């Protein structure tokens, strides 16, 4: 417990819970100031970029999937699109739609998990989704059922929910039959209504008042809610082609830290990727159902309150069910599963919207189709600076609270970002000391 006579209070959260991967939080507070905030990520590094060197391009999707068990599709799809872009492979529209359905399925599974089992418990003072299920069984059971539908699509299209095996450079190894897709229609019809009810449930939560001004960065595409195709837009107005990502964003290996932190060139402020960024930058591309639902629950944009991310995830779930339903009903199974291609010495990059935000891959390939060099920027390494900034901003309002309460509230704040520490292959031990002037 806190000794009020002591000049400094040290708060240590040894294991961040209800996040993917392993991290700790260390806070040192002075009487009226924040001396230190350390987000200590001890998830071991796994060197994916190094493993990929020399591997056949056909193995890249299977290998990069293993970066994250929660969002393997994001890794597979981004890798495959980067390789397809290197060799100028154009996939037919029906294949693109089917890939989009698969990506939506991952959003359903990942958002469904985060909303019900990881995040919502915070709004009810529960330690887990299982505890929340005792208080509010209807909502948690509905959430598990929603999440399961995402996994069912992944099992049908990809063979299994975690590390699916069907995506190939040029298309798919196998396409589903039309009747297999149609069997999912009733589930999606249920899911659409259930996800709308879920957003109404979320709309009733009590959200802490906290504004953390930020720059949102996400893919943007005038034709659709951008996931796999578009330019990289920022809420401060800048829009760049994906091919210019490395000229506009860079990663830094910070001294006294082993983290690679993502920065925007010429802009010292952190930026934020993920559902909040997407909803803000592509609000007009959300369906009318989703937009009127946002209005109905009284969510006003812009919002810079990170606790609202659960609303953004909820709205994206509705979008996923509604659009997924239309893809299921209209899929044209007469298309070839894979287009033929030839390997060549070339480089290609791609960016897509993982459940947690923008993910970027680039591959330099040789004549025989082997990887010479790979670069992967996951969403969490981009959000990390924003998370740290939020912590520094919110801590002064908590100084009068007990250590336990501060620790719990800081963890809650971190959870808003659905950080995926397993994804952040780059960062190991983030010991970031921030002197804050009192």
């Amino acid at each position, binding site marked *: 417990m806190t000794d009020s006579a002591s000049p400094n209070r040290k708060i240590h959260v040894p*294991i*961040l*819970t*209800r*996040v*993917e*991967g*392993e991290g700790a939080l260390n806070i040192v507070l002075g009487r009226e100031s924040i001396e230190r905030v350390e987000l200590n990520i*001890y*998830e*071991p*590094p*796994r*060197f*994916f*970029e*190094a*493993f990929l*060197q*020399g591997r*056949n391009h056909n*193995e890249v999707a*299977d*290998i990069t999937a*293993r970066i*994250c*068990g*929660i969002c*393997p599709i994001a890794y597979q799809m981004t890798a495959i699109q980067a390789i397809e872009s290197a060799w100028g492979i154009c996939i037919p529209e029906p294949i693109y739609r089917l890939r989009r359905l698969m990506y939506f399925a991952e959003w359903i*599974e990942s958002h469904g*998990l985060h909303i019900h*089992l990881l995040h919502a418990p915070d709004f009810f003072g529960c*330690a*887990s*989704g*299982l*505890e929340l*299920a005792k208080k509010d069984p209807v909502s*948690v059971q509905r959430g*598990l059922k929603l*999440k399961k539908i995402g996994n069912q699509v992944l099992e049908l299209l990809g*063979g*299994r*929910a*975690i*590390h699916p*095996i069907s995506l*190939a450079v040029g298309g798919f*190894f*196998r396409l589903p039959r039309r009747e297999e897709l149609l069997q999912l229609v009733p589930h999606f019809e249920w899911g659409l209504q259930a996800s709308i009810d879920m957003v109404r449930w979320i709309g009733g939560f009590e959200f802490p008042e906290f504004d953390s001004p930020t720059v949102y960065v996400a893919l943007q595409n005038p034709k659709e809610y951008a996931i796999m195709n578009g330019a990289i837009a920022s809420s401060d107005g800048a829009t760049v082609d994906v091919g210019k990502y490395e000229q506009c964003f860079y990663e830094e*290996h910070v*001294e006294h830290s*082993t983290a690679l932190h993502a920065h925007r060139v010429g802009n010292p402020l952190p930026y934020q990727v993920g559902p909040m960024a997407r909803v803000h930058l592509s609000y007009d591309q959300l369906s009318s159902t989703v937009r009127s639902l946002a209005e109905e629950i009284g969510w006003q944009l812009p919002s810079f309150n990170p606790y609202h991310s659960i609303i953004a995830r909820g709205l994206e779930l509705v979008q996923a069910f509604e659009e997924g339903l239309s893809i299921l009903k209209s899929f044209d199974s007469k298309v070839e*599963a894979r287009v033929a291609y030839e390997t060549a010495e070339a480089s290609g990059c791609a960016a897509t919207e993982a459940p947690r935000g923008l993910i970027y891959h680039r591959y330099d390939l040789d004549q025989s189709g082997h990887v010479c060099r790979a670069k992967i920027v996951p969403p969490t390494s981009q959000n990390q600076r924003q998370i740290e900034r939020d912590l520094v901003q919110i801590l002064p309002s908590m100084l009068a609270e007990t250590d336990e309460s501060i620790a*719990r509230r800081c963890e809650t704040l971190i959870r808003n970002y659905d950080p*995926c520490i*397993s994804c952040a*292959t*780059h960062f190991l*031990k983030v010991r970031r000391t921030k002197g804050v002037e009192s």
Partner: protein
Amino acid sequence: MSKLPRFAVVKFASCDGCQLTLLDCEDELLALGEAVHIAHFAEASSHLEEGPYDIALVEGSITTPHDLERILQLRSMSRTLITIGACATSGGIQALKNFADHQEFLKAVYARPEYIQTLSTSTPISQHVKVDFELRGCPVDKVQLLEVIQAYLRGVRPKTSTESVCQPCKRRGTVCVVVAQGVPCLGPVTQAGCGSICPAFNRGCYGCFGPAAATNMMSLSESVLLQTMTPTEAGKWLRSFNGYSPVFASESLRLWPLTTSTKSQNNGGDTQ
């Protein structure tokens, strides 16, 4: 105090996918929460208790000096320790560094390798502590995972299949991709459990459940892999998610030997 068995899920170097398999048991999760006392499952609950544990599920491999300490401690607190997935049972994809120069890998990813504290190897849990049961798969299969948990709750040893991917593949009615399409496939030497999904999707098995109980690796290489692949390609292909399992590793090394420039001599616990 609760009389239910004390249940823990603990993670080491991994992608989270195997413990996610537990959270993907949408129909059984709430019942599992009734059948055990979840004492430690950081991904699912903020309520964390110290050991002892009756059943500890372990995901991930050992790659740092800190994790080596943690696994020894966990073993001493756990009555039954079950490893789940390829990382925990064979070192995982990150065990590729065991075949390579560790320092070169560090340099490829980090600008300042001197700040990274990691062992030169990624090793399975069984290399460090006694393991009561190893469940294979990258990721583990949901049905097998539930079977294993249920078996230990009833106090019996689980009976997961040790046959190869080929047997369920035939039962599934899939036309053999090797015979019909000439596609290389590791099915004959890989343990079943995944549902033999890859051949059903017109591609060869890539061995994510690790070696089957009885394998003839050299025969597979000569009669299947080397029909369409060079020895280097075949050796490289065996070196993936279970590449450090002894059966796959030795055949891979036969096909694609290490040269002195690609292998660091250091196999110990070098920390910088």
